[in-house]
């Protein structure tokens, strides 16, 4: 007879915070990317991935549209576009 006493790891994935985006979303142009990883490092959701140049992208299921990736990109290769 127990109440819930622990949570299994990494289960927050069930919560799709992409629905939080209201006005804008990042667009990864994948043209001038130098794979500096800054967008990956700075994303508060940890929902940006990529390896080589011009492969970085984000998971819109979780992206809240904060825009720090576009702000941090030294090549302006990420731009914020209107949420469709």
């Amino acid at each position, binding site marked *: 007879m127990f109440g819930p006493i622990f949570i299994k790891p*990494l289960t927050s994935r069930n919560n799709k915070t992409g629905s939080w985006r209201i006005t804008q979303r990042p667009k990864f142009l994948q043209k001038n990317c130098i794979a500096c990883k800054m967008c990956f490092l700075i994303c508060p959701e940890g929902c940006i991935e990529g390896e080589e140049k011009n492969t970085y992208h984000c998971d819109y299921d979780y992206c*809240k549209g*904060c825009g720090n990736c576009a702000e941090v990109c030294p090549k302006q290769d990420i731009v914020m576009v209107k949420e469709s």
Partner: protein
Amino acid sequence: MQRKVLFAPGHTACAGCGQAIAARLVIETAGSNTIVANNTGCLEVFSSRYPESSWGVPWIHSLFENAAAVASGIELALKYLGKKENINIIAQAGDGGTADIGFQALSGMFERGHDCLAICYDNEAYMNTGVQRSGLTPFGSETTTTPAGRFSFGNPTYKKPIPEIALAHGIVYVATASIGFPQDLQRKVKKALSLKGPKYIQIHVPCPLGWRHEPSLTYRIAKLAVETGLYPLFEYENGTLTSVRKITPKPVEEYLKLQGRFKHIIGNLEEIKKIQLIADNNIKRYNLLAES
């Protein structure tokens, strides 16, 4: 390079949350052989709401002020089991949980010499309860308990020097870091965890809600805090200053004007001068000036 996710998306931090950025960088640098004790605060709330957790490592939250003591207990248990050598222990808290209510437990952990890393996510007020002043709220900042008014220019006191106080305990490693310099932050976490004994890292993490800035400016504001000299990045190993981030100082106004919490000061030269003096003193004290 296969990245091991240890802080999963789907957490409920505000868009642009600086603490979420730092928490992920810390845990993914520390790696999966890590146990975390977390004080009460935003991070605990937005990452552990039943039935969903963002954590990919063993993680425990007990109370607002006791993570350092809980971590001490975890360390003793692992020692008893003969398992301490391979496992990192992190005790983490916000600025209130570190500098105010959790300070006694933290000091006890330092003094007893537990092999734990204490992390302070410094967003400079009690954000989880609605932006009240803490011991790490900077001078002049408006919070909900240090409002600007006819007789007030916001918070009348200066940041409590927790890194220096930690240092005075004679612990092996003390550093400040910022999400404005993520690689530097990762390097410091790695360095700290390579040393045996108590460690302290204080990380500057802007809070869009509490600081009243655009969520997209979290990174830029964190960087400006360092570049103005208001948040010096330094590193002490065994009591010796081993590194500082050199800067070509920008005027503090560039940092202040992006944030609603300093709105009442913008245009008031006398008050800005007082804040510039804090930066100037930091620059002198830590020798931050880059050689031109």
